[in-house]
């Protein structure tokens, strides 16, 4: 069986000869003629292509997530339910979310509007990651160039919350349930090659598949890999989709710490991470927009080895360890050791990231994690500083200072750490550490910041940690409205 089956408004859609890196956006727009879903960027940054994807859990509950259709590959849809803007209402019979947007003048050119409507609708039905969130946070992945957002925010407040009746969806999704790995082959007319793909459902199956196809590309949320296809036009020959590997997305929170499966999505990791330390929760809030956090995984963020990924420096500072698996073999290493050089990680063919363990900070550990970017929401870090400093009374017992954006990999600042250890918790100590940073890093100049700026702010982040300890308000995000 190689067809991909999913529900569109509770009707089954079956796709054969599926291009495994064909996007849902193109399917909707050019094959199903659901043209309400728009392309604004084809890279996950604008939200014009926002749709809701529903997944059935073991308890027969449907979990709806807002995601970007432009970087969602077709095999990822198998067994799921899909809602687009056309699912809600039509002129004359608008859904309350649509009605509110009309009444509050929430559309001008209208091109971003369907995406906003879907995010707002998701919020109204309590979709993943929306509960307890401000409207601004729920909309952080939707760009509008016309309205200035005020009218959309006003519309949001006017939309009544309501449960979605998922009865029919549950029944239909149950009919689409699979128990075995779904595999497919695609004779690609453009590349001329036969491309293979697999969608396993358990970690054991994944391990076996990857041993059999050690050169296969793993795809989790595709928030990185999607862009290789839409922007770089890369042709992936063999792919293993891991997004539905249930036991890769588990987590276990104990007194010792938090174990997270590599397949855990940001949206599901946010709260437990926030319980380890609030700065971690705040960091996850600022990764991508909700659509990216609803798809992207912690494992993908680490595995891709990016020097500007947000979770690695933070988790390194907290002393996380990484478990890799190949077949039935597992090995565990300190997270920082995984990153060897730019584009080069300690991962062997046939090996995958299975899980991550983050120890719970002790009561004597002071932590500060700060992401610096041009824009607060949905931006990539220019510099990320993550500091965990363990105190023995007023003396620094140990320090782990990790940075993103300062080197070719996420990296600890060993000189600055040494400047802290054994010293009193004082302004002078932090000043010395800040100065020592100059020996730790020679950052690059790029579109996100100059080398000089990066060094200056990296040092200032240490000073800021000290000042925050004195009770000073240090972040513009902390200010109440005026």
């Amino acid at each position, binding site marked *: 069986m190689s067809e991909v089956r999913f529900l569109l408004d509770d009707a089954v859609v079956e796709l054969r000869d599926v291009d495994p890196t064909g996007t849902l956006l193109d399917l909707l*727009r050019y094959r199903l003629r659901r043209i*309400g879903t*728009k*392309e*604004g*960027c084809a*890279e996950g*940054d*604008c939200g014009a292509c926002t749709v809701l994807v529903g997944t059935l859990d073991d308890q027969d509950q449907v979990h709806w997530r807002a995601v970007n259709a432009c970087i969602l590959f077709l095999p990822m849809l198998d067994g799921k339910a899909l809602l687009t*803007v056309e699912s809600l*209402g*039509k002129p*004359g019979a608008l859904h309350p979310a*649509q*009605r509110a*947007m009309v009444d509050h*003048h929430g*559309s*001008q*050119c*209208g*091109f971003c*509007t369907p995406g906003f*409507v879907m995010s707002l609708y998701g919020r109204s039905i309590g979709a993943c990651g929306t509960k307890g969130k*401000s409207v*601004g*946070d729920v909309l952080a992945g*939707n*760009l*509008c160039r*016309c*309205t*200035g*957002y005020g009218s*959309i*925010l006003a519309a949001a407040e006017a939309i009544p919350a309501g449960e979605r009746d998922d009865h029919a969806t549950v029944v239909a999704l149950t009919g689409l349930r699979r128990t075995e790995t779904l595999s497919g082959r695609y004779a690609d007319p*453009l590349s*001329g090659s036969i491309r293979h793909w697999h969608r396993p459902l358990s970690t054991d199956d994944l391990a076996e598949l990857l041993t059999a196809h050690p050169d296969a590309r793993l795809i989790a949320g595709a928030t990185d890999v999607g862009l290789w296809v839409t*922007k770089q*036009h890369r042709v992936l020959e063999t792919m293993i989709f891991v997004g539905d590997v249930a036991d890769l997305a588990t987590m276990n929170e104990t007194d010792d710490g938090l174990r997270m499966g590599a397949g855990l999505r940001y949206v599901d990791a946010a709260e437990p991470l926030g319980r380890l330390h609030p700065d971690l929760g705040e960091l996850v809030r600022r990764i991508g927009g909700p659509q990216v956090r609803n798809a992207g995984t912690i494992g993908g963020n680490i595995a891709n080895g990016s020097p500007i990924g947000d979770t690695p420096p933070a988790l390194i500072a907290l002393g996380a360890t990484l478990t890799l698996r190949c077949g039935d073999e597992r090995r565990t290493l300190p997270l920082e050791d995984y990153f060897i050089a730019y584009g080069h990680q300690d991962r062997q063919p046939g090996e995958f990231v299975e899980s991550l363990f983050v120890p719970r900070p002790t009561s004597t550990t002071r932590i500060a994690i*700060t992401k610096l970017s*041009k*824009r*607060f929401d*949905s931006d990539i870090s*220019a510099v990320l500083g993550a500091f965990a400093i363990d105190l023995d009374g007023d003396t620094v017992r140990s320090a782990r200072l990790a940075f993103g954006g300062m080197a070719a990999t996420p990296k600890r600042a060993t000189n600055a750490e040494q400047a802290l250890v054994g010293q009193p918790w004082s302004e002078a100590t932090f000043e010395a550490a800040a100065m020592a940073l100059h020996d730790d890093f020679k950052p690059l100049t790029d*579109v996100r910041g100059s080398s000089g*700026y990066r060094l200056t*702010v990296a040092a*200032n*982040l240490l000073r*800021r940690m000290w*000042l925050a300890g004195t009770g*000073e*308000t*240090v*972040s*513009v995000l902390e200010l109440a*409205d*005026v």
Partner: protein
Amino acid sequence: MSDRDPGLTGAVRAPLPHDSAEAHVSGGALYADDLAEASDLLHLAFGQSPVAHGTIRAIDLSAVRAAPGVVAVFTAADIPGHNDVSPVAGDDRLFADGEVVCVGQALFVVAATSATAARRAARLATLDIKQRPAFVTIAQAREAGSLIEATQRMARGDADAALERAPHRLTGSLELGGQEHFYLEGQVALATPGEDGQVHILSSTQHPSEVQHLVAEMLEISHADVTVEVRRMGGGFGGKETQPALFAAAAALVAAKTGRPAKIRADRDDDMVMTGKRHDFLISYEVGFDDDGRIEGLRLDLASRCGATTDLSPAINDRAMFHTDNCYWLAAVEIVSHRLKTHTVSNTAFRGFGGPQGMVAIERVIDAVALHLGRDALAVRQVNLYGAGRNVTPYGMTVEDNVAPAIIAELAESGRYAERQVAVAAFNARHRVLKKGLALTPVKFGISFTTTHLNQAGALVHLYTDGSIQLNHGGTEMGQGLHTKVAQIVADVFAVPFDKVRITSTRTDKVPNTSATAASSGADLNGMAAYNAAQTIRERLIAFATRWRQVPEDTVRFAREGVWVGGDLVPFATLCRQAHIGRVSLSSTGYYATPGIEYDRAAHRGRPFYYFAYGAALAEVVIDTLTGEHRVLAVDILHDVGRSLNPAIDLGQIEGGFIQGMGWLTTEEVVYDDAGRLLSHAPSTYKIPTANDRPPRMDVRLWQPGRNVEPTIHRSKAVGEPPFMLAISVLSALTHAVAAARGEAGCPALDAPATPERILAALAR
């Protein structure tokens, strides 16, 4: 008269939603890429220059032609007529021929069976381009004397002498970045061949007529053989004034050559690389002033990066000069404007059209004066305002409608300016890391195309015998609500409900020879043209009703409930049907040309503007002196739209314009590398504001006494561009916050966009 008080039907001045709002929210509004695709449709992609400047020795396209799915490839050699997609100067090539002048310049177009096939194939060409030295920055071009036109000078009085005499004198400079339009819908065009060599083009363009003319001349066919249509754009902001011609021409060429429909839809990154942006500027000033901060003499030097070709840069830079006075009387002033030719994509129109850059210059001068004297910046602004006996602009136009002083005073009061300055100072005294700034800046923006002949418009109105109305005019809808406003105007003429008026696509075969929908003039021009068309029909109906029922003319009255004819109520539809039977034409064109404007460009003297639009904004910001991060905390806006045609749409324009301006001055950074490659070519690297960047408190109000002194349509004022410049208050407030953090007299050299990096730099300077 068009300035009679409307309101019979409530159509005009009512806060009606956008006419497409229900279609927008339900996904049913059709954009150019949304039509069902024909089975033989060809998808296009451009091959682009990887270098900024060079001579083409050879382009080997064999691999491109051989790629799967490719049907045809065309280059400059295949163009039957003019290889030109430029608005004025004739210097924008459809495909490079001999020379490449910027990275991303189109070299050829690939037509294939799918967009992916075309895009992949376009990368397979083997290019032999001899690289030549490229000027990327303003400084490089200036050093080399590379200009798109002669340096312009606008002056009044003896600035040198005034500077000599002035009690105080300051110099300074400022770098002001460009801006990417980031319309959510990228450039797109669909060309369909018709019979006998004709072609129809669906284009996302603010200027259908220009696309029509360029395509015709490119294909060497008559204008009458080309029809360009646009129902709506997914945003324009000036970025679809001249830029769509490139895309439309490529599609038209392929359609003409292959006989198949052809569509080009620019990928976002390609769109950002290949299309022009707002001009970035280098500004320097020398100002002389008295103890109160009253400006006595000013010398301003404006240098802008125009890019590789002329595009609209002359008019844009003129408009920058026109707005260096903003609301202030400059007795002795010299403004020099250098228009630099660089090997970067040609910069183009963008909301404000140079005006914002000129206005930032003078507002920075005022802040510098205030900070130098240690005086309140609002007080310095107020002593410099235009007033009696000091009301002539540097280009010789008398400011007859000066409402800036009143608006500023009202906003200072309602926004509690004085009280909040005290609170800000107290906050700054209490905080070591965070510092606040507060600023109130005004806007005066000139309305009209400064190229006088562009100030004309046409419309076409049809009544059908069921009483429904079809409206067509030369303006294009890009989200600004133009169609809604014009339909309100027409509905009001006949006293029918708004939804009786069906607005249709803008088409060059309905209203010919139109101007771009630009310069904020859309409603002023097209609204009046449509009003005139509707009025013509209305007069015919009145004349008919008089004959039909043998009643005096003044007993015929259009009302919400129908048409009163000599005391009888006749349903509107009945009157239409009867008039048709009575052989009365129910269709009319309408035309309008703005009166009273003239401008001598050689002397930079005259009355280029019909009137001015005004507003003022008060912004409060906070900066982090350790990281340079900042936030806009609160904004109060009072803006003059004259008598509003639609307050909901106007408020939307004001808020949207403000946020877009705020983005320009804060998070949006256009970055090129030394080789002239755009590094900020995607939303991952180019950051427009998100919902959370909107100030947590934003209070936007229309200025209630507003009424245009000129007889514009229902005494309204243009609103598209002016509010963009309200955001200068944010840059000013940031400047004051940095100054507070530095704790020394003088104005910090804060460049824009004020990214965290630039704020830190300004703190350290």
